């Protein structure tokens, strides 16, 4: 994929005095929804701020679809950033806030206002648009910021904890909005702490811990790369005890747990491909297998395997 | 039914007596303040002038050259009210600078971090809070103003004898009253400004600006309206008039002593009203 279609970090480090922000980050992010996952202080926001030019790297270079972040005039034609800062310019109404950003794009006033209304419509905030932002609830403030960042139809949308403070209904609408943006070929970079949501929305994830990139790529691909942790697989079948005894004959199966309803079992294996071949054989031996599903190729498990206790620390 | 493990017991040790509880605030403030080398250095530098004055007092009292020549000691070498007024002016100016350095850190950070509800959720009243914050400055400024002033008076009294002390006791009163009123005024202005704005940078500017702009305004009121009463908003003139009056020295500030006292009282009242409005256990929940 060419540079003009990806976001590239080359050996990027950022130090805040003696404190490490991020260190030696090398990334190539393709279009689609990419989630940045990591505990507090892992460097997610620093990475986003560097990508958008709000913070400059101490070392290394960044290119966003071929544009350097220190060229705001070019960068913010194609980029929108919804930050985590919950503050607004004083005295603005919702519509003024979004329109202001579009005026800065150089749009004529009428066109800016029309586009602002369109963006506000997308985040379902039309009724409150003429009220002062200072009087908004946390969720509304989050949505108006989102509206501002998508108003100029950016090709790269960077969103720092965008689902914070949103109620479940709005969350699903917002996630659908991200998907819509990604489907039209945009980069959607999201940071989130809510792992099951990341799981639902992400095409790829970047796991960060203590300023380092721990893993990156599609979730399943990342899981496959982790060889020191046995894969967990849930099997629903009619003879779980028999299946368990058969499985234990093989060295790569390290643990089998029969489900309390005695209709399934959880298997831990160090060799997933061998295991799947083995299942075919067992099915031919007369065990009826209803479903097979991986139990640990989600972000939650990746987080636990790769970051684990560090997250808590 | 929930079963809770009974592991928590409330504190049962000794408590700071309510009367001295306000001193908890300076204790912690000093811990933080004295971490700054610049501040400690400045505080030490503030004591150089009093040291020089002690040397001067000793020299003047032990000059034998004039006696040996049979002529009286020249007037400018006398230790009198004017000498102590110069001392008070110099140390008073240093106290002002020290206030501008420390003052903004008193209440503004508590406001910026919504810390007031935390203070007032304890057995700690608003008055105690204000007194505690004022005492941070009061104690520190005392060290560089009236305390060395009294020491100077003591040195001079020990050198010049009992008669001098009896004849000049008003100087002691002047040092005490003059510097304590100055400290009180500086502390009140400082905490009021610090409470009025939550950014310490702006609070610092206000503490500095109120003196400069007050003096400028006083000047234009006097010159446009051809009056002297404009000086009542010039804090440095107010204090200088009060000090000079204590030492029985005529001034050209255009103010009479009682007018200066009215100005002083007015500034204190305004500061107290500002504190009354701002020091409240409220929190802005966003």
């Amino acid at each position, binding site marked *: 994929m060419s540079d003009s279609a990806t976001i590239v970090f080359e050996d990027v480090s950022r130090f*805040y005095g003696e404190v490490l922000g991020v260190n030696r980050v090398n990334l190539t992010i393709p279009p689609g929804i990419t989630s940045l996952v990591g505990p507090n202080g892992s460097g997610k926001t620093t990475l986003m*701020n560097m990508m*958008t*030019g*709000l*913070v*400059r790297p101490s070392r290394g270079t960044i290119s966003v679809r071929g544009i350097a972040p*220190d060229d*705001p*005039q*070019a*960068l*913010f*034609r194609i980029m*929108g*950033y919804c*930050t985590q*800062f919950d*503050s*607004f*310019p*004083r*005295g603005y109404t919702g519509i003024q806030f979004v329109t*202001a*950003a579009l*005026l*800065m*794009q*150089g749009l004529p006033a009428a066109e800016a206002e029309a586009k602002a209304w369109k963006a506000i419509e997308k985040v379902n905030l039309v009724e409150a648009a003429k009220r002062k932002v200072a009087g908004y609830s946390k969720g509304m403030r989050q949505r108006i910021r989102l509206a*501002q960042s998508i108003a100029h139809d950016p090709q790269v949308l960077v969103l720092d904890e965008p689902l914070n403070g949103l109620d479940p209904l709005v969350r699903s609408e917002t996630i659908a909005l991200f998907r819509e943006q990604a489907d039209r070929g945009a980069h959607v970079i999201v940071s989130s702490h809510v792992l099951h949501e990341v799981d639902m929305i992400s095409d790829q994830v970047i796991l960060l811990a203590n300023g380092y990139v721990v893993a990156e790529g599609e979730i399943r691909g990342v899981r496959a790369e982790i060889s020191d942790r046995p894969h967990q697989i849930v099997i629903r079948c009619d003879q779980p005890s028999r299946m368990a005894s058969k499985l234990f004959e093989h060295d790569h199966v390290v643990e089998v747990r029969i489900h309390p309803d005695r209709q399934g079992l959880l298997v831990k294996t160090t060799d997933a491909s061998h295991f799947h071949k083995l299942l075919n054989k067992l099915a031919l031996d007369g065990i009826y297998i209803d479903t097979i599903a991986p139990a640990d190729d989600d972000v939650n498990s990746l987080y636990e395997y790769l970051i684990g206790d560090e997250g808590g620390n | 039914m929930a079963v809770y493990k009974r592991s928590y017991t409330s504190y049962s040790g000794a408590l700071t007596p309510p009367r001295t509880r306000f001193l908890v605030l300076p204790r912690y403030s000093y811990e933080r303040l004295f971490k700054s080398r610049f501040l400690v250095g400045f505080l030490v530098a503030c004591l150089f002038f009093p040291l020089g004055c002690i040397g001067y007092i000793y020299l003047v009292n032990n000059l034998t050259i004039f006696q040996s020549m049979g002529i009286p000691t020249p007037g400018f070498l006398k230790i009198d009210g004017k000498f102590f007024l110069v001392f008070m002016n110099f140390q008073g100016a240093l106290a002002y600078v020290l206030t501008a350095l420390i003052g903004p850190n008193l209440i503004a950070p508590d406001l910026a971090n919504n810390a007031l509800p935390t203070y007032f959720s304890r057995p700690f009243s608003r008055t105690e809070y204000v007194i505690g914050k004022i005492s941070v400055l009061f104690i520190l400024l005392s060290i560089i103003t009236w305390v060395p002033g009294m020491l100077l008076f003591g040195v001079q009294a020990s050198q010049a004898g009992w008669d001098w002390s009896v004849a000049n006791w008003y100087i002691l009163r002047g040092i005490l009253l003059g510097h304590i009123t100055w400290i009180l005024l500086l502390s009140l202005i400082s905490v009021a400004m610090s409470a009025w704005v939550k*950014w310490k*940078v*702006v609070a*610092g*500017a206000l503490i*500095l*600006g109120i003196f*400069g*702009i007050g*003096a*400028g*305004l006083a*000047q*234009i*009121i006097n*010159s*446009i*309206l*051809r009056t002297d009463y404009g000086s009542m908003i010039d804090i440095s003139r107010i204090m200088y008039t009060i000090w000079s009056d204590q030492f029985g020295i005529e001034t050209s500030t255009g103010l*009479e*002593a*009682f*007018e200066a006292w009215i100005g002083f009282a007015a500034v204190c009242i305004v500061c107290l009203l500002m504190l009354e409005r701002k020091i409240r256990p409220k929190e802005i929940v966003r």
Partner: protein
Amino acid sequence: MDTVLWRRQLLAIVQLEWKKTLFSKRGIWVYVLAFLPALLFGINAYRVKSIRAEQERMSVSAPNASAVSNKIVAGMSADVAAEALRDAKIPYSRFTRGRRLEVIRYNDGANAFDLMFREGALVDKRKRNQALLSDDIRAYAGMFQYFYLRLAIFFGCVGIFMNLFRGEMLDQSLHYYLLAPVRREVLMVGKYLSGLVATILIFGTSTALQLYLMLSAHSNKEVSDYLAGEGWGHIAAYLGVTALACVGYGSIFLAAGIIMKNPMVAAASILFWEGINWFLPAMLKKFSVIFYLQSLCPVVAPLNSDIPEPLKLLVTTAAPISAPIAILGLFTVSIAVLAFASIYVRKLEINYGAD
């Protein structure tokens, strides 16, 4: 160079910013500072009018009042002075200020006096407002140069221009500008222009109002004579100097707000530098904004009476420079300061936690 886009963006920034600056609650103190002199000249106008009316009344009711007044000299007791005034049917008020000072206030038809008595003897015979336009013009010159330029516009510019970047940093709202497709230099110039619009509007209006109120105290003939002579030139010069002060101080404080985390240190240092300008050698004087502004002021202000006599000896004079050079000098200084600030604005980072 995309000049059309830059022009549009500049316009957008100015439109967004100037209202914010002009109508912010936080900025009320700037208005107070700016319009206080106008209020004082308003009060003065009222006083001058009442003094004039009193003088006219006196010329009818006590035609020999001036002669009596001339006989009141230093050392005279308060009772004797009061008796003399009473005998001449000159109305007076007698009051005390404190324990030691007694004042007799009267108007002899030509002048208004305050007689100051200490311990019963006349120590000072002070002329009060003479209701003369020439006096007011001098008072205005003093007020304009010592208060309006050095304090009101100075601190007003501190408040407004420092707020443009540092204030938004403290409010945590500057990032919205940095996330727009605007060159940082364009953003800086836009903010500077919006600050200029606001300050020139506030301080320019106040200057005009002050001059109007000052002149309104005097008779039509006096005013028209003054305007026919050098009056309009003075008015234009004062308005121009006001605008130039905003240009000069504005650029400095905008730069301080960008470059320094605690711009108050810069403000205090500049205030000190501008304050000691009188005592600086002629060469150093030129490295200040106030020097150029004072060179452009149409009336020489009397030296501040607050300066102690020994210090007055240290006051140096630099030959005032010609208006075009002063204006050019100020613009050059401002542009240089802004150019310097642009280096920093390009590197500006958002790190709200550190502020």
